[in-house]
């Protein structure tokens, strides 16, 4: 009971994220991920340098390097902004690695703002 309560208090699941970002689930309907942190970047090296394990990545980039980067830095969920849809080989790689993919029509700024407002934290630099 207590653990369930715990998750509700400090985390958000994919459904909650899709609701806030008005996003579609491109892949990973059945996967359950708890999100506590968010990273937003188009530069994959930036993602590698500051992202935290299990974070949600907001990006405008849609090639398979995004999945690779997510894999290396243990990103939990990827969401594409500004109505972009993942390329075919990317979608396949995402499925293979079990990384849920979302897509929203919102801009990067708007998407970040909404999540921040709901209390989700960024990945602090260190």
């Amino acid at each position: 009971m207590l653990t369930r309560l715990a998750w509700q208090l400090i985390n958000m699941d994919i459904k909650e994220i899709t609701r806030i970002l008005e996003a579609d689930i491109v892949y990973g309907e059945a996967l359950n991920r708890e999100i506590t942190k968010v990273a937003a970047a188009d530069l994959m090296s930036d993602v590698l340098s500051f992202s935290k394990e299990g974070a949600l990545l907001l990006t405008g980039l849609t090639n398979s390097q995004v999945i690779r980067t997510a894999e290396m830095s243990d990103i939990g969920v990827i969401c594409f902004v500004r109505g972009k849809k993942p390329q075919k080989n990317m979608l396949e790689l995402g499925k293979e690695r079990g990384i849920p993919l979302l897509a929203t029509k919102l801009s990067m700024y708007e998407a970040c703002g909404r999540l921040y407002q709901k209390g989700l934290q960024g990945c602090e630099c260190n």
Partner: protein
Amino acid sequence: MTEVTKVQELVYELKLRDVMKKDVFSVAPGMQMSELREIFRTRRISGAPVLDGDRLAGIISIEDFIRWLSDGGKECRISEKMSKRVETFYSDDTLVHALNKMEAAGFGRFPIIDRQTGGMCGIVTKGNIIEALLKELEIDFHEEEIRRYRASHIFEDIRADKSTLIFQYRIAGELSEAGTTSSGLKTTLKRLGFHPDIVRRSAIIAYEAETNVLINAKEGKMVVRVEPAEIYMKIEDKGPGIPDVEKVMEPGFSTAPDWVRELGFGAGMGLPNIKKCSDKMVLNSTVGKGTCLEATVDIRQPQ
């Protein structure tokens, strides 16, 4: 079921001093009420303890502030509007005691008093308690997993003066396929049961280096040597070489063409990233001959 019993165990075992937030932002009783607006807004907090020295004088919350505003907002000291009857806990109280009292009180922020000195030493919310419990559970779960799967025990079982595991990878192909080599290394290190932080750092080093090789030299090789104390990685290519080794270590310096940047790389963060992830890094390069990068990750002291 086992998880629930573990939680029950922990709430009796852990003391509030283990979970409380220690560096608490507080206000002084002599401050003006109007100063609170900026404090609450910029710090994104909904209340703060009022401290006279290290003694707790009361608590001022956003509700108190709103009440003061709706009563006309006449300037006065915080001490006149704060709640003086404050429920507190002692730092050596158990979690279960705190949780029960929180349930009954119906609110969730409690100052913690040091029983010896009588001063305030922290603050606790339900969130702190839950976070601490989760952390404990995660550590437990992680230790359990390591015990079960750790193949790196292999070092303890091998009788030799020196033992080393060596993995070799060839780096080649299109840049769009960068990551296949590092992905293989990551899976291997995970399987060996290294701490997730070690695995992640090694994977990032390999990935950045692999990308560099593919962009600049088209092909190369990576040798990874796992020893009881460290993971040593050597990435070599016979590419054009780097004219100014110091320059490429500067964050933001990049020679990458547009097609590389379109893939999200070439921002001049690769080598700085590698340096950040490794405990030791050596970069050697000769123009026209090639480049050799050596990086070491210490596995004796997980961070």
